[in-house]
């Protein structure tokens, strides 16, 4: 086999894999245009009637609102806690802070199912199960590691002498962090906040355990609908999630691009 033919095979294989990777995201939208409620990839009769059902049905619509609210709160909380922790780890510990790193990364390492049954057991005793607070508290723990990792990455590139310079010019320690370091790590914080938002917005397994009928987020509503009866409205919920994720990714991309441009200037 010549090199060219071998390359061709490689391109063919990789093209097929790429198509397989993109397939699910591309079929969700056509699935949601179904006129009937029978599951179909390319429905013969198309309309937006499932969308009306989604936005008119309080069960679905409220779940969407609850998801957005939870994710927003989680994003703010996790970004605050995670940024503080990243600053503490990078500036406060000479070598890697082994134990602290282990604690902060634990939510990523422990299998989600274990975390789900564990928080169900304990939150039940605390009377949290079924309240919005349960989801906020659990999702924030899951999201903190993502913020810490991204903020630490951008913090490693900031020269701590810049802060010392600000302080030698009369700034307070907090003022130096606020005016000098924060603007430099803003990019990492934005990405961390985004990851935290998505972490909460997409979380299913733990939420299934912690939510009651009245506190279901959108993924939980979708999950129960898939388990009980395959309701075609799930396709609309999927499209809504997909569109929201795309919008968020674009937003983050645009802000990053804008800040990169203003840095270059």
């Amino acid at each position, binding site marked *: 086999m010549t090199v060219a033919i071998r390359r061709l095979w490689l391109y063919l294989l990789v093209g097929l894999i790429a198509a397989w990777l993109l397939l699910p995201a591309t079929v969700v939208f056509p699935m949601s245009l179904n006129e009937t409620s029978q599951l179909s990839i390319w429905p013969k009769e198309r309309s937006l009637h499932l969308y009306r059902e989604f936005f008119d049905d309080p069960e679905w619509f409220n779940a969407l609102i609850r998801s957005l609210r939870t994710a927003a709160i989680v994003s703010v909380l996790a970004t605050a806690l995670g940024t503080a922790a990243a600053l503490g780890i990078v500036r406060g510990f000479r070598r890697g802070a082994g134990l602290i790193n282990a604690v902060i990364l*634990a939510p990523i390492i422990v299998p989600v199912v274990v975390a789900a049954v564990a928080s169900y057991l304990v939150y039940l005793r605390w009377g949290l199960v079924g309240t919005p607070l349960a989801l906020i508290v659990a999702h924030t723990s899951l999201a903190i590691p*993502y913020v810490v990792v991204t903020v630490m990455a951008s913090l490693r590139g900031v020269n701590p002498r810049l802060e010392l310079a600000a302080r030698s010019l009369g700034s307070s320690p907090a003022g130096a962090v606020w005016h000098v370091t924060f603007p430099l790590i803003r990019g990492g914080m934005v*990405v961390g906040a985004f990851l935290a938002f998505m972490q909460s917005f997409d979380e299913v397994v733990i939420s299934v355990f912690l939510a009651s009928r009245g506190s279901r987020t959108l993924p939980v509503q979708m999950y129960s609908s898939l388990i009980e009866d395959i309701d075609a409205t799930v396709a609309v919920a999927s499209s809504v999630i997909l569109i929201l994720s795309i919008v968020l990714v674009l937003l983050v991309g645009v802000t990053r691009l804008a800040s990169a441009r203003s840095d270059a200037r």
Partner: protein
Amino acid sequence: MASGLRDVAAPPTTAASGAPPAGRRMPRIDRLGWKLLVLPAVVWIGVFFLFPVASILLRSFTEFRPPESGGLDNYKWFFESSANMTVLRRTLFVSGYVTLLCLVLGYPYAYLMTLTRGWVRLLLLAAVVIPLTTSPLVRTYAWLGLLADNGPVVGGLDRLGLGRPELLGNSISVTIGMMHIAFPLMVLPLYAALLRVDRRLLDAAASLGAPPRSAFFRVYLPLSAPGILAGSVLVSVLSLGFYLTPALLGSPQQTLMAPLIVTQVRQVLAWGHGGAMAFVLFVLTLMLLGLGALGSRGLLRRASAGRAEEE
């Protein structure tokens, strides 16, 4: 479950690099102040995450359902039942072959990514990152539609004269769904590792008379070992804990560890059993991570030994 370990996709450092290691000349009092900043996050995770996890693991030693009565009975229940052992073996097997399949398909994918430029590379990268930012539940739902009996895949196979195979509710759909979730976690570390391999070494091998095949296997492949290791550890750890995919795409007869834990806790209300299985799953995860750490240390040592030999 699948949304775990997503940080691999996080963009790397933003600000300019080349700064000296942080905090070399900080006064000691300052240091304490900085250290205190870690506290809120650590306490939060400690109270709301680690304490529950520790509680459920402890339950396996304190809560029993007759006929179990004390001691390690929950573990005896788990390890002495052949049905449970089948599930454990199946879980390990599935984790292994999902990892292997992802590696076999991910390697050429990552390799081609390093060869392409411009928009082709961007497209290949997007194809990996887009699934990563798509909710695993949404993707699983899409597979339900795609693999359904009246779906396009079965229809396509029928038209090709391959019959109408049953794709949903068995290991085919579970494998496809799991691989789709795990694949990006294999490709991204592989791609990062392959980018670092100096391709001129292949030319050097060729100029010394090595046929392409042995240049690849004796030069390129060993240099990409860190990426193979990192990707395999990520994917195998993720695959051990799969819950959604088997629950929605698989059949109850082919259950895995994660769904079985949920059944024990939710339907049977056997917290001790669930705790023991959670413990087993947790230990397996730690073992895989430990193996990965050992492996990467070994690779580092070999690399530095090789460098010392050259000098």
